[in-house]
């Protein structure tokens, strides 16, 4: 992924030249093998706005968890992955586990503005929840990792986080006798390696799914499951406020990258796609399940409450070239803002408690 745009390419030079010529209107030009023509308006015809039943049908919970062909589910893998997930010996200090920052007690986040890494040093971004990671298209706020297996190893190795070189980790786990049979049961032909460790943790993470919330009961037809206020909020969410343009579907994200105009210096996705204006300050859209338990909010943890988040979107944030074209002042009334918050609170499930596993010695 880091090699996606190794250099800005001559494409950029061309755009600058074109702009200095003036008067020619098109998005950009390519040089060499690909030539981009001008952009024209087309007539899409007028579409009637979809009715409430049609909108609701887009929010049905899936019946099964998707597991990749390369790493199918087995109960042995998930059980091993759970022990590894909660094992502080995965960090060099033996003080942090995956669960330190992605804790079931805080909607699988940490309840802090930004994460805390090795040596109690603050990290640059808010610890994202792992709820519903099984449905993720791409991982990390900046999308730098392609699979949940890669993601599982990222924080373990990162110097600022768990700071644990993988060779050293596998030596350490190899000396804990009770881990050997667990790996052997989960990976009979592969044994114990950083790769199988990642597969086990990813398998466990995929089993962490938000449970049924009042919202789901309403989607399935129980009109009494949520308040009238929340129903109005759902209409604003899909209509006037256009939240659903990005917070799409049952998990409330399409995993897209958007600059939503937060006044932070962090360029996010832009680090990996330097040539693309709209990716500067862009971060992956988080899902909204269990959102009430996941404060503070945003990639930098800069907003304390759901009310503050709604205010931010109503205002539209910092107007800059990278800001998403979907961000603009919304002109929401006090009632509409309150309705949106009421709606988001219907996404909180009655999470059953997560038992911390007994760890191998």
């Amino acid at each position, binding site marked *: 992924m880091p090699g996606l745009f190794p250099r800005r390419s001559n494409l950029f030079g061309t755009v600058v030249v074109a702009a200095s010529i003036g008067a020619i209107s*098109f998005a950009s030009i390519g040089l060499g093998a*690909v030539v*981009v023509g001008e952009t*024209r308006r087309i007539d899409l015809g007028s579409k009637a706005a979809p009715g409430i039943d049609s909108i609701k049908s887009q929010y049905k919970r899936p019946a099964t968890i998707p597991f990749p062909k390369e790493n199918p589910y087995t109960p042995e893998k998930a059980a091993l992955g759970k022990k590894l997930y909660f094992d502080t010996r995965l960090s060099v200090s033996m003080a942090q586990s995956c669960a330190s920052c992605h804790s079931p007690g805080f909607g699988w986040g940490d309840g802090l503005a930004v994460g805390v890494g090795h040596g109690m040093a603050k990290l640059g971004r808010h610890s994202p929840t792992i709820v519903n990671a099984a449905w993720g298209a791409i991982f990390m706020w900046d999308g730098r990792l392609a699979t949940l297996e890669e993601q599982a190893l990222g924080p373990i190795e990162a110097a600022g986080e768990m700071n644990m070189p993988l060779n050293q980790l596998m030596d350490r786990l190899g000396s804990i006798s009770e881990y050997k049979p667990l790996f052997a049961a989960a990976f009979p032909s592969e044994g114990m390696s950083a790769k199988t460790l990642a597969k086990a943790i990813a398998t466990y993470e995929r089993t962490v799914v938000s449970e049924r919330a009042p919202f789901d009961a309403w989607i399935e037809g129980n009109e009494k499951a949520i308040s009238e206020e929340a129903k109005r909020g759902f209409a604003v969410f899909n209509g006037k406020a256009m939240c659903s343009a990005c917070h799409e579907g049952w998990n409330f994200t399409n995993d897209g990258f958007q600059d939503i105009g937060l006044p932070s210096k962090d360029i996010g996705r832009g680090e990996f796609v330097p040539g693309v204006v*709209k990716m500067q300050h862009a971060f992956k859209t988080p899902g909204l399940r269990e959102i009430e338990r996941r404060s503070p909010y945003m990639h930098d943890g800069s907003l304390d409450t759901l009310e503050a988040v709604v205010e931010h979107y109503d205002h539209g944030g910092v107007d800059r070239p990278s800001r998403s074209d979907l961000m603009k002042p919304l002109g929401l009334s006090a009632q509409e803002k309150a309705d949106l918050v009421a709606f988001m609170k219907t996404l909180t499930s009655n999470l059953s408690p997560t038992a911390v596993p007994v760890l191998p010695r």
Partner: protein
Amino acid sequence: MHKTIAFALVVLTGFSAGALAANQMVYQKGRVFSSENVSIKKGDALTFVNDDSIPHNLMSATKGSEFNLGSQAPGTSTDVTFKEAGDIQVICAIHPRMKMMVKVTD
């Protein structure tokens, strides 16, 4: 300077004239490409239509064939001409599930 402008204009109008030919169309409604694999002849263009309700940002990071349409508004279309044979991956920078391959043949 004037010469440069004239040259640039000629080249650019030349390309947009190509838009009149019946290009293969690629649509993006619902954050999905209408086809994941498209085959075209060298020198032909694809017309990328944003018939969705939100902006997309099509681009390619395939070496030698890099391009970037920038933010493409709903209700617009853009022609992209492929001048060299090869397999080119086109993605949307915004939506990571949007990926397609363009096979450019001699």
